[in-house]
């Protein structure tokens, strides 16, 4: 609930004790490091959105011809866009690592009755990620 000014306290009666409801501050997420890290994790969605938008802009520049594409590439190399991309890349990497560690909790994989330990699921995800990244890199760099 939004922090409201506390209403005037009602008089205490033995059969209606006045409970105290501690207001939750708007800045609750700054009060503990784990909560702040959680909000950072949630804000990685902006790195994801940046990826989508920039890829679409790249496709648009491609469709407009070689000069437009070249101009787009020059703009991408400008300090502003490099800065933004570095931030987005860091956010995307944080998204990837937190997503994989969360998957250990969320996915229950059973082999022959026993549950696969979470660390193996995380490792499996990272392995798959490395393979996908390697394939894409090979494709784009050849």
């Amino acid at each position, binding site marked *: 609930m939004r922090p409201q000014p506390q209403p005037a306290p009602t008089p*205490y009666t033995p059969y209606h004790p006045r409970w*105290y409801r*501690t207001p939750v501050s708007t800045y609750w997420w700054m009060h503990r490091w784990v909560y702040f890290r959680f909000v950072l994790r949630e804000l990685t969605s902006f790195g994801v959105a940046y990826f989508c938008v920039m890829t679409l802009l790249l496709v648009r520049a491609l469709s407009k011809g070689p000069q437009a594409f070249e101009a787009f590439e020059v703009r991408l190399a400008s300090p502003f866009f490099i800065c933004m991309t570095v931030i987005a890349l860091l956010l995307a990497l944080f998204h990837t690592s937190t997503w994989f560690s969360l998957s250990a*909790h969320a996915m229950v994989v059973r082999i022959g009755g026993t549950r696969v330990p979470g660390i193996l699921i995380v490792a499996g995800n990272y392995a798959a990620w490395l393979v996908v990244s390697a394939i894409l890199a090979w494709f784009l760099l050849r």
Partner: protein
Amino acid sequence: MAETIQLEVTRYSPEKDSAPSFQKYEVPLRKDWVVLDALNYVKDKQDGSLTFRWSCRMGVCGSCGMMVNGEPKLTCATFLSKYAPGPVRVEPLRYFPIVRDLVVEMSDFMAKFRKVKPWLVRKDDKPLSEGEFLQTPEQLEVYKQYSMCINCTLCYAACPVYGLDPFFIGPAAIALAQRYNMDSRDQGSDERMDILSQHEGIWGCTFVGECTKACPKNVDPAGAIQQYKLAATMNWFKTLLAPKAPR
């Protein structure tokens, strides 16, 4: 090791206070003492008016949950020496209304817990002559982790969504719903599905994960909630694409 350690304990008297305040107590720092021992020392020797809940003092009843230095803990399972040289701040469980001092009002949790039908639901009752329900060790292992819950509500104190969203059912209740859903003897998953998949029942959860960290019994409520979300989603698609099929 120092002789004593300072406790800063929340005091709130609804008869005279309009808001909680802190009171400091100096207690002996014994190697084998837990925070609950310190609180009982205060109540015995220094201030008999200090009010708090406790029962088994061995981490199985779930009564003594409090915030110790800002983290939800069972005070009977939290060693005092870990916080040396102190001071140790002891507050009532977060996100629950405070009744007096360290005692909180649990009726919201109780109501939400009851809503998920935390008992075995049967559509057809087996007659007594057929004997008991049999269950293999593998079938037990599927839900055993979630059955370890002692309803201490430390997970509710850790969950910011519970503090912010009055409709969120909360970690323990959903984990216990999963415990019964995954039990081979239970036939009530669709009844629970209707209740839980209402807007905000479980969907308020953003997988902060603090509930799992706070749980003293390794129930992993965060994992249970995500698994439940997956089950509810698959059920949603199934009822969308094959509405007449038995669930």
